[in-house]
């Protein structure tokens, strides 16, 4: 179940050590790659190398899934998702950042597809990449001053932020590792044969039945929420324009 057996490495690092290495490399990579004013080419190259090391550490610490094809597909889409998510927060230009986010969404929807949530995979593309991201780009085009502003070129406390993120991901992977250790204990017991329902059979029909059956009131509430958000957004914009005219600022 653990990584070292499958790769047949001559040495067998403990998964905890491997994850610790991956987390440390991730922190170093984020620190080196976050916009820091005049970052040299060397530090950027070292950062990219540390990022690759961290990714391969995470890939080696991940768990085997049985089928090789499934594993390959999962590894590919997860790598696309994580690399483009990292590029989203690391590129200086906000427009490129938004476009990297679109690629990250493609990877995430691939992960959701592999996990058997077909509807959500497609809905993520339609709702996020199709609607929310385009809204972000609209606002960027409306608001972005020409060229890179100085605030895009430097970050708030890059070292502390990278360390905070690494501590967070370390804690999360620690609890995931304890989960797998507990499951190996449980797998030895008689409860290992519990069958769970397969959600991918008749997926969309059953999902719709669940959504409009058990969660019908929540759907209505979500509809009201969308309407209220729409009205609120329009109200804030129009009041802002009126206030701008009253103060003599140019209304856009």
């Amino acid at each position, binding site marked *: 179940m653990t990584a070292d057996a499958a790769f047949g490495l001559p040495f067998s690092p403990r998964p905890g050590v491997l994850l610790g290495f991956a987390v440390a490399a991730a922190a170093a990579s984020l620190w080196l790659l976050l916009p*820091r004013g*005049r970052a040299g080419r060397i530090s950027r190259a070292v950062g990219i190398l540390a990022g690759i090391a961290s990714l391969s550490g*995470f890939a080696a610490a*991940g*768990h085997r*899934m049985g089928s090789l094809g499934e594993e390959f597909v999962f590894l590919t889409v997860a790598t696309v*998702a994580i690399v483009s*998510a990292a590029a*989203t*927060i690391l590129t200086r230009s906000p*427009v490129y*950042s*938004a476009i990297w*986010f679109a690629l*990250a969404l493609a990877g*995430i929807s691939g992960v*959701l597809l592999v*996990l058997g*949530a077909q*509807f*959500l995979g497609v809905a*993520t593309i339609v709702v996020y990449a199709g609607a*929310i991201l385009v*809204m972000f780009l609209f*606002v*960027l*085009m409306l608001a*972005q001053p*020409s060229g*890179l502003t*100085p*605030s*895009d070129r*430097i*970050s*708030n406390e890059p070292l502390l932020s*990278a360390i905070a*993120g690494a501590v*967070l991901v370390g804690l*999360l992977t620690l609890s*995931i590792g*304890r*989960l*797998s250790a*507990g*499951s190996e*204990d449980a*797998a030895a017991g008689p*409860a290992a044969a519990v*069958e*769970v329902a397969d959600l991918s059979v008749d997926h969309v029909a059953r999902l719709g039945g669940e*959504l409009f059956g058990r969660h019908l009131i*929540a759907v209505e509430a*979500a509809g009201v929420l969308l309407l209220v958000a*729409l009205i609120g*957004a329009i109200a*804030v*914009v129009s009041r*802002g324009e009126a206030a701008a005219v009253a103060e003599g600022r140019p209304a*856009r």
Partner: protein
Amino acid sequence: MNPDSLAATAPADGMLLNGLLVGAVLFALGFVGILARRNMIVMFLSAELMLQGVSVSLVSWSRHHGDWGGQMLVIFVLTVAACEAAVALVFVLQAFARTGRLDVAAWQSLRESVVPRAVDHGLPEVDTHPQTWPRLTPAGIEPELEEDELLQREHV
């Protein structure tokens, strides 16, 4: 961890653990983005990344338990994210209209009185390299350009 609490369900398989790992990494990347970046729109993109990380984790658990609850929650997360983006971007636009900057540090007068003022260190010099654009062979007469056209941004 108490093994009895897990005995009621199937043991954690590789797919669940890998899904949780991907979700955790996405969440942490979004967290770093929120902390470190200063452009308000990039900060919102990072918040969306955190939401996506949580969604991946929820779908992993949903698949693991054979239960629709996680996927239902993700559907409502998508809905609320759309509302949140609409309202938040309006506020970003209003903030931009007041200061002319997308930098959150433009609003640091709202900080607590005991917090010292943030000062930028190591600001880069302005990039003086001229951007290279493709050149066309001049032909015909030179058009008279409007003032507005000359003020268009050169790059984004």
